[in-house]
């Protein structure tokens, strides 16, 4: 019963997706009202999930921050950071649901929603796994759904090509990860439970050096899987192609939910490894160095893009790199729990900051069948509200105060300086300078260039889509990004009380 309570948020999403699947299978509901019913169903179950998550919260971790609850034969667990990860995923679903509402009728909206819900369930499972096999199954679920989603537009050549690429890359990386897990299974004398692994690793001082190396190789192989999922250099090659080929809404999904799950899982993995083992330091350096390169590479590559989808895809790669920098602090003397506020701050703010641009691009894309940067030109004249909120989000992505993006970057920045990684902090700061180049390119086109299409043309054909309630909510969120950028005291307090710091 205890287990069911902890699993109830996930369960709500499963039920929601099954419900939609049922509706779809029997073709229930009128064509005209389909859109709004789907939206409301998802919203209802989302609120139900949020309600259960609040109930989970009532397990009162604030008194015992390090407590873990295990359930379902101990294969799943619930801890404070898992709850935070789930909140971030719920936020992502909420935004994606709004995005789905604005999809054109030709789009397979219901399929998209069902798969979004399922991928989120799998993401939550990745977060809360306490068993390597469960973890792997959840990960593969995410992968398989992602492949399918990429090819949602079967008829389109680019879409199918992207999906095939994705399957091949993903298959190889999953195989490598599985290979690493098999090694770990052998080396750790036959247990796949994380809690057993924790015990096993706590004897690291008795490891012989050759044993350590073997262990490190197996862990490195597992990390390769993570690198692939998080699109970190040098396992990033799939990302731009897949992002370009996949429909915009799918890109918005792929850039958020799996990333939250895998960053959370990475944090969980590091919490298993003993802090002063040399292998931990090696892996942390590995991740953060890759993050450093990814960030720089993503920012550099984004500069030259004229396709909005590609530009924001690279931007999301760069942000993933920035988040990975958090793990550099593992190698220093600061406690693991101090990673927690920066990591989750960033993940929380990253969700709206990356979905909102895709939301606007999606509307542009479905109207013009193109996502060229120049299509935004003179936008501010026709749609001042949309443009201003878009600009706010872009400023937040750069990390300018008083936007929330600044707070997120500030947290990571101060974590790095606190653990005396001055060079890394400096490179990170320089990267926000580089990122200005392309974010301002978008701002410039939005606000400065004169419009290609005349405003009248725009208003007659396009505006009805921009004046619906999802747009209003997205605009509200953009303003919320300022509010949270100024008053982050409470949120920070909330996060840090769980960290036990």
């Amino acid at each position, binding site marked *: 019963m205890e287990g069911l309570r902890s699993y109830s948020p996930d369960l709500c999403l499963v039920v929601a997706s099954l419900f939609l699947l049922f509706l779809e299978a029997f073709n229930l509901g009128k064509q005209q009202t389909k859109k709004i019913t789907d939206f409301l169903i998802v919203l209802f179950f989302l609120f139900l999930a949020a309600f259960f998550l609040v109930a989970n919260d009532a397990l009162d971790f604030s008194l015992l921050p390090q407590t873990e609850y295990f359930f379902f034969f101990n294969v799943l667990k619930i801890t404070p950071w898992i709850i935070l990860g789930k909140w971030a995923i719920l936020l992502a679903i909420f935004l994606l649901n709004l995005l789905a509402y604005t999809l054109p009728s030709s789009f397979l909206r219901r399929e998209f929603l069902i798969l979004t819900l399922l991928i989120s369930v799998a993401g939550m499972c990745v977060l809360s796994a306490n068993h390597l096999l469960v973890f792997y199954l959840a990960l593969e679920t995410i992968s398989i759904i992602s492949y399918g989603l990429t090819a949602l537009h079967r008829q389109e050549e680019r879409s199918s090509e992207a999906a095939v690429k994705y399957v091949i890359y993903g298959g190889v990386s999953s195989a490598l990860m599985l290979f690493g897990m098999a090694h770990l299974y052998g080396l750790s004398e036959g247990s796949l439970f994380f809690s057993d692994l924790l015990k096993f690793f706590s004897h690291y001082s008795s490891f012989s050096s050759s044993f350590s190396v073997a262990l490190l190789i197996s862990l490195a192989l597992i990390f390769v899987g993570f690198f692939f999922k998080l699109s970190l250099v040098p396992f990033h090659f799939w990302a731009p192609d897949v992002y370009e080929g996949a429909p915009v809404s799918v890109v918005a999904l792929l850039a958020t939910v799996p990333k939250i799950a895998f960053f959370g899982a990475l944090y969980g993995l590091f919490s298993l490894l003993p802090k002063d083992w040399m292998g931990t330091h090696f892996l942390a350096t590995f991740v953060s160095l890759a993050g450093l390169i990814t960030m720089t590479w993503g920012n550099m590559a984004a500069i030259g893009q004229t396709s909005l989808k590609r530009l924001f895809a690279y931007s999301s790669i760069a942000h993933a790199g920035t988040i990975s920098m958090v793990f550099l602090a593992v190698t220093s003397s600061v406690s693991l729990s101090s990673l927690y506020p920066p990591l989750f701050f960033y993940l929380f703010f990253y969700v709206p900051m990356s979905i909102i641009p895709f939301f606007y691009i999606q509307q542009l894309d479905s109207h013009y069948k193109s996502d060229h940067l120049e299509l935004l030109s003179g936008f501010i004249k026709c749609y001042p509200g949309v443009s201003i909120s878009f600009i706010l989000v872009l400023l937040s992505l750069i990390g*300018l*105060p008083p936007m929330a993006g600044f707070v997120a970057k500030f947290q990571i*920045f101060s974590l790095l*300086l606190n653990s005396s990684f*001055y060079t890394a902090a400096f490179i990170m700061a320089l990267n*926000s300078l580089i990122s*200005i180049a392309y974010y301002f390119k978008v701002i410039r086109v939005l*606000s*400065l260039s004169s419009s290609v299409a005349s405003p009248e043309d725009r208003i007659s054909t396009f505006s009805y889509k921009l004046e619906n309630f999802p747009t209003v909510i997205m605009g509200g969120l953009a303003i919320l990004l300022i509010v949270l950028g100024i008053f982050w005291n409470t949120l*920070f307090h909330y996060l840090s009380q769980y960290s036990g710091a």
Partner: protein
Amino acid sequence: MWPIVSIILWGPALFSLLLWLIPQHKHKEIKIVSLAGTSLVLLATIFLFSQVDFSLGHILPETEIILPWIEQFSIYYRIGMDGLSAPMILLTSLIFFLCVLASWHMEKSLRAYFSLLLLLQTCVYGVFFSLDFFLFYVFWEVMLIPMFFLIALWGGDRREYAAIKFFLYTFFGSLFLLLVMVGLYFLSGKTADSFNLLALAGGKFSHSSLTFFGVNVSLESLFFVFLFIAFAVKVPVFPFHTWLPHAHVQAPTAISVILAGVLLKMGTYGFLRISYPLFPQAAIAFSDIIGALGLISVIYGALCAMAQTDIKRLVAYSSVSHMGLVMMGIASLTPAGLNGAVLQMFNHGTSTAMLFLLIGILYERSHHRWIVRPNGQKGFSGLYTQMPKFSLVFILAMFASMGLPGLSGFISEALIFFGIFPKFTLMTCLAVIGLLLGAAYLLWLFKRAFFGEVLEEMKQYTDMTCWELCYMAPLCVAVIFLGIFPAPLLNVMKASVSLLHRLVTNVQGS
């Protein structure tokens, strides 16, 4: 007094939001509301000045507001005013008020323009009022956003390039500011005062060092250099000045005025408020280098100004030259030099604002700013005959900028020279050459544009209107009054400047 301080700081932002309640096409109402906002703030500033006593030099307790902001990081909303920031706050109130008047005939998207202008004003006040490093940084950065759009949307032909350049340069500088800010937070032990600029002052970090790739670096020097980059971009000190001519030329008149009149002073104010009090030993160690860079700015700026054929560019380079002199005054670390520097910050604000406003007035008639057109023909000639009133005001501004005795520039430049002479004797002599050059380019400009035959196309230029005279009048009065009787302003800053001087030089003694 805190309501008055809050009105000054947040009033413009409030009015900026208020403007969005007015329909876009109601130009007159928009202008009146903006004018009401800036005049309210100006009145509040004057009232504040009449109520406080600057004789002690500390942060005036009645202007101080301390509220917790982000408790976990011990970041406070901590604002206050002392003799260093007071002249700048007065200058800001005055310049923004006049800029609203000078933008009266704008046509293009008025509501957004005034809204951004007022937002900018709040940010500028924020920089001058902040006593918390984090708050200072936030205002410093936020200021970029309205400024970017003001240049990029209402500027000249190459406005986008100029705006991006301005943004990138300043943002590059502020990255260093961020580094120092967070670095200091950890260095000072994350205590409740870790972002408090007053508590951090006094050379507390002179013994901290850092091993970086095997080299031992004194953190005091490292942070000082970082801050130098951050502020030098803004001043701008040679070699960080290259954004300035573009931004000035492309910006609309009022924005040029604000840029030259107020924003450049934020850089030098940063030196006085943060760099020097926090890292006095490094400040003393680097004083020769800063003095030398100031000198280069003085001479290089003047030489560049001489070569310009665009009046606005000429005045922009003259700003580089004058701000170089301010840097020399600050670097000298003598009471006279520092007083002169702060006074020059104010006086340069008024005299350059005059010049830019006049150029704006001229541009409205001529739609070009060439002294000599690219094809070699004269751009202007015989302005004196055509526009006598304009020319008289121009002469006043020009002489104030040159530092003619009896006008404001003279007092501050003389003070700076008194201050720097014992410290950098040779450099002082060279700086005098810069001053001579300053007289040369302005007089040469005057000769070419104001004397001679009136060109044919200039025949329809009308003289300054009553409206234009009205908004030039306060600046004319300020320039003459402070040239004859600078004591009121000097009294405001004197005590604070000597406090700063003692703070920095006492550390040297111990």
